[in-house]
């Protein structure tokens, strides 16, 4: 993993306000997005983050770049 499970949880949490307000931002550009489309976009974003986080960096073994307490 590129980051720890805990850091991944935090990153995923940060996607929530982004996804929630994405519709409002897109509406400024006259792009109407339904709730369902928002959910799809959110799911796609989460999958992308998971792929990035879980895929081993440079084919090497798992690393824990996040700090631990």
């Amino acid at each position: 993993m590129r980051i720890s499970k805990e850091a991944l949880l935090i990153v995923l949490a940060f996607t929530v306000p982004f996804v929630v307000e994405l519709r409002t931002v897109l509406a400024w550009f006259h792009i109407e997005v339904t709730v369902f489309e928002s959910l799809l976009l959110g799911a796609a974003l989460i999958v992308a983050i998971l792929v990035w986080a879980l895929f081993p960096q440079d084919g090497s073994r798992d690393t824990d770049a996040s700090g631990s307490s």
Partner: protein
Amino acid sequence: MSDATVNDTTKTTGEPLGEAYLDKFPAEAKVVRSALYSSFLMLALGGLFGVIQTLHRTDFLRIMESETYYTVLTAHGVFLVIAFTIFFLVGVFTWGVTTSLDRGVEDIRFTWVWLGTMSAGAVMSAVAILAGFTDSIDMSADVLFTFYAPMQAHPLFYIGLTVFVVGTWLAGADWFRSWWAWKKENPGERIPLPTFMVLTTMIMWYVATIGVATAILAFLLPWSLGLIDSVNPTLTRTLFWFFGHPVVYFWLMPAYMMWYVLLPKISGGKLFSDPLARVVFVLFLLLSTPVGIHHQYLDPGISEGFKFIAMTNTMFLLLPSLLTAFTVVASMEHGARQRGGTGRIGWLKALPWRDPVFAGMALAGLMFAAGGFSGMINAGMNINYLVHNTLWVPGHFHLTVGTAVALTFMAATYWFLPQLTGKKLWGRSVALVQVVLWFIGMTFMTNAMHRAGLLGIPRRTAEPQYDGFEFEAGVGSVAELDAQIALGSIFLTLSLVLFFAVVIGTALGSRSDDIPANGYAEALSGPEDSPKILDNLKLWFGLAVVLVIIAYTFPLLSIIERGGLFGPDITAFPQSIDIVSMAWVTAEQYAVDAFTSASEATQAAINGVLR
């Protein structure tokens, strides 16, 4: 005692191990633990009423009559913003004073007296509120947290609040007494930062509570006892907000204290600047109270000039919050770089995100930034008119007190519990999920509340919809906003369940020798770098009083001159309406209107014929 002075052995946790708070101050630890457990009880009750009211208002689950909504709303508000926050902060302040002065309180029996006084007051007010749920007891206090006239509560509610506040005054006296004793033993020493924060906050509280004490003792309590017939509503509102805004800082300043003295330590570094922290607390002391009129921009009876002064003061109050944002982020960055973090943004990855204490406080601080921005909207006289008394306002304060304060307190609990019980934190991963869930729940709920406020959807009502009128959302629909609010409240409730699971799990655990040492963060720039005048508490108290006199003397005189001390015969809410005479007045008005219309039509017809 700073963390530099403790035994610097480290075990698996990475934290220095040594003497826990319980080992050094067993008697005080018991008091702090009792205060925290009292606050958690209030949190449980307040949270329960929160989800009930949210699901009712959004029409997802109705288990009560709409009339009961106001009892639920009062319980939610008073239990959370008065009892939960203040019980928690008196515990934290006792820890802060004793830890930083490295000495116990002067007389532990007195400490128990003030905690007992506060508890007795809380029980009295709670009984008055909860009695509103049953008709068999002739008692209610459905007056919301903003308990000004013409809404009237049972006398027990006001007596309870008074006793509770007197308890906090005694608590402050306890901490001042401890500081004076320390000062005699350590002449010429600078006040340790946590004690400085406690003392400045308490001076602010003493000044601020003059307003609510006057409102209750001189007007509301005699009025509810039937000793006086009426009150001046504008006067009681103004006296309430004299206290009602600074109470916000009474909740917030302990959270700031946690961000200044714990967060840098948990981040692995040091506080960026001790002098800057002192400046921030002095600014809060000076500026917290003379701003309350900004809650009354739409109140008649207070001239625009006084409102403008309150707005200016409020804008100055942004300064200490912005200074805090700078100092806390700088301290976190210092900690991250000590842990090997590099790069302009990359250092964020080195922060201890797996630690629920850190993650909770960091997320709380982040949401506070959003709450600060919506607060600026509330503070502006012109733009406030757009959002006044709409759902925007609860959206704002669920970011400030509901997240910045509550989430910080919950995260800090995960640090305090082992210190106070000598037991390892149970369910560290559960705790992390809890703080993240709170962040997500509040994101949904407050986002929708702010947006609903912009549509003009009102607050403080069980039935926000009107016949023949539809609110229209700019993006999406009102139903979607309601769904967001309900979803958010469910996440928050789940988060609370997890919080209590961790607290109970820890409390039921067994003693451990693996508890991190008690202490707080050292500073990169310490107290020796701060001007000595900052520790002159008499000067800051005097200036705070002068500012309050300037801000409030003329508005209060003007209100009394206009409406009298006891007002123009204001009857208590709910007011009775004489149905028969109302019907007669309405019929009479219809008759006059019909006669006028008929006369006009006849006149027009005659004119037409004559032409």
